């Protein structure tokens, strides 16, 4: 497991214009858990990654792996500390003049492992990532997805207990992203890794993360279990995790209502039940229902006759749904803004932080 305690990074400390890039970050990732960190560019994601694998010394705070504080180690211990955390970098970070096998062997070479043990370990790792037949190919002969699988194999070479994935799916096509995420989940299960998955791609999070943290201006502003966040109607992250197109406009004398639910507590035929019970027509204006860990999460905009809003909200609450009138009236009349705007808040640059 990895514990991050009050991790702070200030660039230009002691100068007249210090920039706080990371501001007392706290989180814990248990073995076998995937923790996703999302945020707009400039939020401090890449600095966080560099502090976690100690390419950058944090200004203060701790990175604790399996009970050992890596930040307390001296310069000589730093190399050992880095070996506890395997890092999968952005694509094309393989050495161009080394074959796939030689790239995977790099950390073992640096460690001083014997040729025979290196060969055996590299063969195992390439087998694990499904590239046993590509061992002697050079990076330019591999696809982007294959290169990233070599990157995973290299990150696992020294049997780390923590795997850090730094924007590893950026630039991969959807099929390669799929394979990468499946492989990540597989090695997590097989090796019991604590995984820190840093990304700006919301759709990848829904597929792999157990917990999610939203990084903004160097702080984790939202943090929770993925299934809780997906259901939380107040969560900015939750909204971004439930992507859907713009809802239709509510008709005359109709009121738009946002409804969020999950299938653990709400019957699948809730819409029919509510309609029958209230005896009113209910129109669906927009909807997204997706499954996370076998649980269906629904996020809908419906419209009911304007004078039945409170009755609908009460009845929905009794069935276990969370319902509320669409907050900004503009959203119903100009629905295009709603979810898009929220997603953009998370994913687009607010302010570039100079690094």
């Amino acid at each position, binding site marked *: 497991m990895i514990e991050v305690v009050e991790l702070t990074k200030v660039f230009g400390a002691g100068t007249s214009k210090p920039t706080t890039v990371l501001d007392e970050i706290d989180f814990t990732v248990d073995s076998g858990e995937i923790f996703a960190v999302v945020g707009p560019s400039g939020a401090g994601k890449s600095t966080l990654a*560099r502090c976690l*694998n100690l*390419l950058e010394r944090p200004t203060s705070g701790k990175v604790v792996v399996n009970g050992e504080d890596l930040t307390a180690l001296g310069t000589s211990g730093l*190399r*050992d500390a*880095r*070996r506890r*955390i395997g*890092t999968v*970098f*952005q694509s*094309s*970070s*393989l*050495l*161009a*003049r*080394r074959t796939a096998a030689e790239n995977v062997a*790099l*950390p073992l*070479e*640096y*460690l001083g492992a014997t040729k025979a043990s290196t060969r055996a370990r590299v063969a195992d790792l390439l087998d694990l990532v499904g590239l046993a037949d590509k061992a*002697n*190919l*050079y*990076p*330019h*002969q591999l696809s982007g997805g294959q290169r990233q699988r070599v990157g995973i194999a*290299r990150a696992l*070479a*020294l049997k780390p207990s923590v795997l850090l994935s730094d924007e590893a799916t950026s630039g991969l096509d959807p099929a390669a992203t799929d394979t990468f995420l499946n492989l990540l989940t597989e090695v997590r299960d097989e090796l019991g890794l604590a995984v820190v998955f840093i990304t700006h791609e919301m759709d990848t999070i829904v597929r792999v993360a157990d917990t999610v943290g939203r990084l903004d201006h160097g702080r984790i502003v939202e943090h929770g279990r993925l299934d809780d966040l997906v259901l939380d109607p107040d969560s900015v992250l939750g909204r971004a995790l439930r992507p859907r197109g713009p809802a239709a406009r509510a008709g005359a004398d109709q009121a738009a209502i946002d409804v969020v639910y999950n299938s653990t507590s709400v019957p699948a035929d809730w819409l029919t039940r509510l309609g029958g019970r209230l005896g009113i027509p209910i129109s669906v204006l927009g909807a997204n229902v997706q499954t996370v860990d076998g649980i269906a999460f629904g996020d809908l905009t419906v419209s009911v006759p304007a004078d039945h809003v409170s009755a609908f909200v009460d009845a929905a609450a009794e069935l276990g749904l969370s319902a509320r009138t669409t907050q900004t009236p503009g959203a119903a009349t100009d629905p295009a803004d709603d979810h898009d705007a929220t997603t953009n808040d998370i994913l687009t640059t607010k302010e570039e932080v100079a690094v």
Partner: protein
Amino acid sequence: MSTTSHLAAITVPVDEIPDLLLPAFVDTVLMVSIVMVIVLVVGVPLGALVHNLAPGGLFPNRALHTPLSWIISIGRSLPFLVLMTAIIPFTRLVTGTNIGIAAAVVPMSIAGIAFFTRIVENSLRSVPASTIDVARASGGSNAQIIWKAQVPEALPSIVGGLTINTIAMIEYSTIAGTIGAGGLGYVAVTYGYQRFDQGVMIATIIVLVITVALIQLAGDALVRSLNPVTNKRVNH
């Protein structure tokens, strides 16, 4: 008639030109080879050092980088003839003489090292910064990162620079030849220039052009074989 016979007497007959050029060619090869070994042994580590002392390197240190960079720049900026003449006292200190191959090797090595250090530095600069991150995160020491990541990745570029450097050293060897270092430069100046012996001059030029062309071809072939993208022998 007498003028013609006089000129004929000091012109080297065509069939004797090889006997004149071959020892000179061997001297040039010897001089350039000795110099290039020294240049390689000193230039690669020095280039790696300068590159990694610079901001963004493995151990950035402005206080060391600036003076070191200046010294190399001074070595690069002096025309070879001036450098060679200026350091004669140093050359005599090192070799005990200021003529001959031994004396030529000293200024040629200094000029060559300054040249090659910049070439190595420039080659290392073209290695993506992510390579350093990867090597560091893989637990590499600074020495391991330099010798097992940076230099190998930059090797085709360094070898390409080595070719350029070797050819430049042939040029320098001819300049050194004028102060009695021997070699093709000496032959070209004494026979071709001072005695207007056009036959020797043309023969020297032909030998030099062929030598340079062969070095360039060999260098290019080596660069191709070192680059996995262009190496035809890489298994697909």
